[in-house]
């Protein structure tokens, strides 16, 4: 049924008119709502669509005509429309800016559906419980949450069919929105579940780069696949993605899980209705399951997912002619002492992946993220031999911001490595996107120049290989960042694994 109203001398700007129309239509579940200035032409138009009333006859072009079509009579619709137009909240006008102190207050006022929690770990679980009790999903960015709490939260969440992403979950992309540290990627049909933030970032940006898109990217936190937690959230998320119409391919990303958990995952994915790509980095899985593809690098995970989605990618795990030429140039300028790779990373998983790739190609590589005894870096502060340092590790970030937020932390270390005569290649990663520093490359460039100069004075030539994990939609802009690095002679890799391969080639590693 239809109703009409004129608002005299109504000068509401178009954006307000539009957003009011859209939100009132949704809130009141209307068949239609039209609001036009009372000009002759608009009157004609409203008449021709059957939304005209004779009270409109006297309206002037400076008045606003409102025509509404409801499924059933809604009293007070005019007030609701006017309130929204004048931007009034429906609470006490006394509060011009409502302050929310608790999750339940916010939920009551705004019907929020997800809480993003980053308070200190000791309080984080409490807040997460409150959110779940209020039927909200949770992204738990905080770390230092106890295992018991993690299990309690996830059990409650599963009971209520809610997500608990974390604890220690830094990345998620839900409904196209990047949460915490995430890149702006296209929307599409590949769904991901990851127990690693930078791992998730890496795969999503590669997918975006080659034309694919993300339906949902769910983070489950670094400890989800431990024996105690048992992969609860990963299993739940796999279910959710398998039911999601938008998702056609599922990708699972994690560092090697506990055996019991791996078994549960394998059982779950055996009978899924969609193809699954599984990347567990170092873990070797000798299973042959229909429509399940096991890969060992993030790059291959992205490539496989794209392939399954019908997208083509170049072979990212080989070095093309152009890059070969660059590599040869670098090799010509080396002196004998230079034969080691020094990797300085902001992203932990990228460090782990690089270790995984280089392990078979160079001798004796160590890292502060290594799990194998013979690869552990005894003192992360001092480099020797081939080493890969994750500067985001706790030992570096006590009382200091994480290098993804404040890349300056890495600069001193770059100079340190430049002074070391055995350094041949310095391997760097740069993370763009939400949450990250506004210009991670820009703030590092000078140091790269300085490092090159230091080595040059000593008649050594330093090679810099960099990988920028980002997209052109990110504020820091992938193209711009890569261009800046190229200008300074840095070799740009297409993916993180690709960067490892390039570094390996430069020092003469195995293919």
């Amino acid at each position: 049924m239809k109703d009409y109203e004129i608002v005299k001398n109504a000068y509401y700007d178009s954006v307000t008119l539009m957003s009011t129309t859209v939100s009132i239509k949704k809130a009141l579940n209307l068949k239609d709502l039209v609001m036009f200035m009372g000009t002759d032409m608009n009157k004609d138009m409203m008449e021709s669509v059957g939304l005209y009333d004779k009270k409109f006859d006297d309206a002037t072009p400076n008045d606003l005509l409102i025509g509404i079509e409801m499924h059933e009579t809604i009293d007070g619709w005019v007030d609701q429309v006017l309130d929204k137009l004048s931007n009034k909240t429906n609470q006490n006008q006394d509060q011009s800016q409502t302050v929310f102190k608790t999750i339940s207050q916010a939920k009551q006022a705004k019907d929020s559906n997800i809480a993003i929690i980053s308070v200190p770990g000791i309080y984080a679980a409490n807040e997460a419980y409150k959110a779940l009790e209020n039927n909200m999903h949770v992204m738990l960015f905080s770390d230092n949450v106890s295992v018991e709490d993690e299990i309690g939260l996830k059990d409650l969440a599963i009971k209520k069919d809610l997500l608990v992403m974390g604890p220690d979950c830094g990345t998620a992309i839900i409904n196209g929105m990047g949460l915490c540290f995430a890149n702006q990627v296209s929307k599409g049909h590949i769904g991901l579940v990851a127990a690693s933030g930078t791992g998730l970032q890496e795969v999503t940006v590669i997918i975006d780069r080659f034309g694919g898109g993300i339906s949902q990217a769910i983070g489950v936190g670094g400890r989800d696949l431990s024996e105690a937690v048992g992969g609860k959230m990963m299993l739940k998320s796999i279910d959710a993605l398998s039911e999601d119409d938008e998702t056609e391919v599922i990708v699972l990303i994690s560092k090697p899980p506990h055996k019991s958990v791996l078994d549960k995952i394998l059982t779950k994915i055996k009978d899924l209705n969609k193809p699954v790509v599984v990347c567990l980095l170092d873990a070797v899985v000798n299973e042959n399951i229909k429509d399940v593809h096991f890969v060992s690098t993030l790059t291959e995970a992205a490539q496989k997912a794209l392939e399954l989605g019908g997208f083509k990618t170049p072979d990212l795990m080989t070095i093309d002619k152009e890059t070969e030429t660059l590599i040869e140039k670098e090799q010509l300028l080396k002196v004998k002492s230079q034969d080691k790779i020094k990797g300085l990373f902001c992203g932990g998983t990228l460090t782990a992946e690089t270790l995984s790739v280089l392990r078979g190609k160079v001798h004796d590589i160590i890292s502060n993220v290594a799990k194998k005894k013979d690869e552990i870096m005894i003192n992360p502060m001092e480099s020797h031999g081939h080493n890969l340092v994750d500067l985001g590790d706790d030992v570096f970030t006590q009382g200091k911001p994480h290098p993804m937020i404040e890349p300056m932390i890495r600069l001193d270390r770059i100079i340190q490595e430049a002074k070391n005569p055995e350094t041949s290649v310095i391997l760097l990663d740069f993370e763009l996107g939400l949450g990250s520093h506004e210009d991670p490359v820009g703030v590092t460039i000078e140091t790269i120049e300085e490092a090159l100069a230091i080595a040059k004075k000593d008649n050594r030539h330093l090679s810099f290989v960099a990988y920028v994990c980002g997209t052109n939609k990110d504020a820091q802009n992938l193209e711009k960042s890569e261009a800046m690095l190229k200008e300074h002679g840095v070799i740009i890799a297409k993916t993180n694994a690709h960067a490892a391969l390039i570094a390996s080639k430069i020092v003469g590693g195995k293919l």
Partner: protein
Amino acid sequence: MSISKLFSETLKVVNVGSPSFKKDFETQGLDYVHLEWKPPASGDLKLLSLLNQIRPYSEQIEKANEEVVSKIKAAEAKLVAVKQAKDVIPNMTSHTILHSGPPIAFDNMVGPMQGAIIGALMYEGLAKDEKEATLLAKSGKITFDSAHHHQAVGPMAGIISASMPVHVLYNEIHGNYSYCTINEGLGKVLRYGANSNEVLDRLKFMETTVMPVLNEAVELAKGIDIKSIITQALHMGDECHNRNKASSALFLREVAGYIVQTSFSDEMKSGTLNFIKNNEHYFLNLSMPYCKLALDSARHTPYSTVVVAMSRNGVDFGIQLAHSDKWFTAPANYVKGLMFPGFTEDDAAPDIGDSAITETCGIGGFAMGGAPAIVQFVGGVVKQAYDYSKEMHEITSGKHQVFTLPPLDFMPTALGIDILKVVETNILPIINTGMAHKKAGVGQVGAGLVNPPMACFEKALEDYAKGVK
């Protein structure tokens, strides 16, 4: 609210923690709310862990609290009689003296309470002077008990002895009763510990004149609706704890005609009328028993974390929860506010009296927003009165229906103090109250605001956590 539903909805975020994420939400046009977050229980991990232990019962607790609030709201209150304590108060004997606040031994009581008891003993004829009365009080022959245990309440010292007239209130919804003495007025009065002849004479006058006249008038009226007077008075600038002008006038208006119709002499009738008229706090001794009546009707609701009594005996502050009759006590705070001329903060006794029952029931300090005149007593600005009334909603389980505050757009007052919310938010209930001189018999020395000690709520929480498992 399922995961698949989330995937098809617009994200609406609540950001709990780092404000640095805000700009990223804005860049993407994400609908978000940033919480003004403070660590719960002021960061006290012990309390947090207690709250966590209770968490699995939150559904039952919510239901129980809702039930409690409903019962309180549903209670009606009629003044049905004015009789001597020994005739109506349960378990009252000739040698029983009731006092305000949680139980306390005579020797530990403050000056005003001891002074009032001495006065009461003399009034009862059990002792002929102060010395005798004191000996008697210490002898063990007198049974002292909290008025609360006898469905009664009293302001300040709150002393009730056998012969004293009490208002009798009846709640026809639940069939329970409550009792409260008649307010003597200002100046040198028993409730502040004065016990001179003047005081005793006045008490006698109330027993022999006011009680019979008022009782017959109330019977003729078939009961006076106390709740309705409170509802109206809240719209007239009263909060029915420290400001009772309008409610007292309304009460007089209700009862005057019937007083005239009673069978007593003109002298007695006019004496009664004038007595009521001259006491602008007369109604306090009716609003308090209304609150007691309403809150008592919700007692013994298992699982509930709502407070049904807040009371002080001059030394300790005590609270009781709806699910048990245990008292949780801690040393009372001193009232902060304005002193009457000639007195300093040093002169004041700690917070004392049963009158905090008004705040427990959502009026008094909780209705400050409707009684801006009170603000003079707290040395503040009117906006604070509004803010307090609003803030109380954060620690209660519900709100009133008919008690509303006109200056706040007829916002209803907060009802049902929930110890869990008090501990979590670190917001304490606000009480508007008078200050008594610490020496017996001097009287009121000021008025202001006070909070119960947080320790009461912490103890209640500990006990609850233990008991709920």
